[in-house]
């Protein structure tokens, strides 16, 4: 869609290009009133498409902001609660004589045995700790299934 000036003349001619069956076809509309009206219609249609795309983009952005606000409202309270619970749990378990081994399981310190020592009793304690971890997982899964099913 463009106004062209032909060689040897001062007139401007309006042409319109369209893709038909994969091939570009050019339509010549001349230089008169028809050409002028066609140019105005094409410009108006192009502006409408731009406006529609801009409105759709703004709508998508608003919807995304609403979704993110919902996610923040639902998940943000969990952050504060997680921090509080972890701190309280750590305080209580430390007070009861437990320590967290390598950011994993909680182990109770026993007198006379260092943390790094490998003995029969510590190996037995390791096996018991692993069993207890499995018990925790089973108990938690049962609790989760029970609650979710309600």
């Amino acid at each position: 869609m463009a106004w062209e000036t032909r060689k040897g003349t001062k007139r401007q001619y309006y042409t319109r290009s369209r893709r038909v069956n994969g091939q570009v076809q050019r339509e010549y509309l001349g230089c008169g009133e028809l050409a002028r009206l066609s140019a105005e219609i094409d410009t108006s249609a192009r502006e409408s498409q731009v406006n529609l795309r801009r409105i759709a983009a703004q709508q998508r952005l608003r919807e995304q902001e609403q979704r993110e606000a919902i996610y923040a409202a639902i998940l943000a309270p969990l952050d504060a609660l997680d921090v509080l619970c972890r701190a309280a749990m750590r305080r209580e378990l430390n007070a009861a004589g437990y320590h967290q081994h390598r950011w994993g399981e909680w182990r109770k310190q026993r007198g006379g045995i260092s943390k790094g020592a490998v003995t029969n009793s510590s190996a037995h304690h390791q096996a018991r700790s692993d069993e207890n971890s499995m018990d925790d997982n089973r108990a938690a899964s049962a609790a989760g299934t029970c609650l979710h099913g309600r």
Partner: protein
Amino acid sequence: MLDAHPEVVQAEGDLAHLAHITMIAAVASSDIVLSEVLIRRVVQMQTELEGPHPTALESLLCERIATCWLAVYLLDAASIETANGERPPENIIEQHERMKQKAHKRYIEACLALAKVRRLLPRPRR
């Protein structure tokens, strides 16, 4: 005046309750019945988890489990349709699924924490 009415302090200072109201309002602000039912359900769940004579830590962990359950429920119930009711694009659906998985993971972690505390710190006999 506040000293004469401790129930007001209890109600207004209950941050968990305020958080539950905010969470429910984000998804179901227009459905009053559902909001009231969910608030009561969360309290009921926390009471059932605590059992008789819970310690302060157990109460806190049970509150965490109930709050996580509420988050999972609300994300499952939340609608992600576009304004004209059409199915949203795949990336939006994937984002929603990721949020649901995050909430579910936290719910499981909260259950694990309570199980761990109950195993390692048994309640004193009364």
